[in-house]
């Protein structure tokens, strides 16, 4: 299987790469359009600020490329947020692959960022969550979130209910870091890789 991580020039690309490799898959990190289009599975990683990240990927002409992909694409953390229409972090237009907007978490006196291990409160029947239950903890690090919508396939609670995972067509996103979420996280990555296109 041909697995690709889109090189968004954000930090932490290698932790995702290692997470995939630990499952026994080969993976390349690239911003080469041809290679990305030819892949069976594509990861869109990201950490940092949405404004800066959009600028970087626009310079690499990644947005148009990603919009045209038909194979499964998994956005992680900021990568998931970039899949929506708009982020309040820097007031930037995002990739518009999944309806929704990114706004600050209404933490209601709780500490921000939402940092650490949290459980999922609702999990829809979706191949990427096969074998995952409400007792499983995932590692989250973020201050902004996407409100639940019809495209939400898992939710999490921290001050408010927000989308822990999104899906529309071939585009999937997770707000948590599966590559840093122990065995349940590895299972999500594996589910995505084994999912039929």
């Amino acid at each position, binding site marked *: 299987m041909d697995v690709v991580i889109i090189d968004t020039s954000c930090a932490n690309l*290698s932790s995702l790469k*290692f997470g995939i490799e630990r499952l026994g898959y080969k993976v390349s990190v690239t911003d080469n359009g041809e290679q990305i289009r030819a892949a069976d599975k594509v990861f869109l990683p990201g950490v940092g600020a949405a404004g800066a990240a959009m600028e970087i990927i626009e310079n690499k002409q990644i947005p148009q490329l990603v919009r045209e992909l038909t194979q499964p694409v998994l956005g992680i953390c900021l990568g998931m947020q970039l899949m929506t229409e708009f982020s309040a972090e820097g007031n930037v237009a995002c990739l518009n692959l999944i309806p929704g907007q990114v706004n600050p978490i209404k933490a209601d006196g709780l*500490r921000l*960022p939402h*940092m650490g291990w949290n459980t999922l409160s609702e999990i829809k029947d979706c191949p990427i969550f096969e074998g995952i239950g409400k007792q499983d903890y995932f590692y989250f690090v973020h201050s902004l979130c996407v409100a639940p919508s019809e495209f939400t396939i898992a939710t999490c609670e921290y001050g408010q209910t927000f989308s822990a995972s999104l899906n529309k067509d071939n585009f999937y996103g997770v707000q948590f870091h599966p590559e840093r979420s122990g065995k349940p996280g590895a299972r999500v990555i594996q589910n995505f890789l084994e999912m039929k296109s």
Partner: protein
Amino acid sequence: MLARRIIPCLDVRDGKVVKGVKFRNHEIIGDIVPLAEKYAEMGADELVFYDITASSDSRVVDKAWVTRIAEKIDIPFCVAGGIKTIEDARIILEMGADKISINSPALANPKLISELNKRFGQQCVVVGIDSFFNKETGQYEVYQFTGDEKRTQKTAWTTMDWIKKVQEMGAGEIVLNCMNQDGVRQGYDIEQLKLARAVCTVPLIASGGAGAIEHFIDVFQQADVDGALAASVFHKAVIAMDELKQTLINNNVEIRPC
């Protein structure tokens, strides 16, 4: 619900994990990667690696071990020590660390915190604070260069003012090392951590003093910290991770089970 974190801390000197008492007299505990793997498997929620020599002797430290850790473990980890510039941080994060922690360099140049925040996001900027209670003044005071006895010095900052300042500058998390308690296993400095909690709106990690399971219960229940960091109790197997976590769960502390 968001779980409280148990964070083993591995002090690194010359590529080995070491442990000192009150920041002194370091003894070698073992190799970095096998220890990191062991703690991850035992159920640690996060790991912190402090390169304790880096800040104090201004060497460029070989951080190749960061990549080796990132390859092996599937929980988040933070690297501290010797990170003075955006470029230093970029290298560490690209090697696979989830967060970087700065201490003395932040005191020398508080703007570094905002620069790191802007470039990499708030979530990966941790500020470590070494705080010592001065009995004469009755104040908690911030120290720097604590990795080297000869260079350790008091700064002009009181701990609470510095906590406020680093948050203004964009820190995403604060690790408060209570130096009076470090390595002596008499319990976390609950009084100081309560004061810190009152002025800290980002995640706060307690450090220094863990010696028994009750100390963890106390620090979560009384000081409301987000995580508790400890070294010697884990290195010397004084506390077993599974027993610690189960006891915390039994005491209604939200914890990710082993």
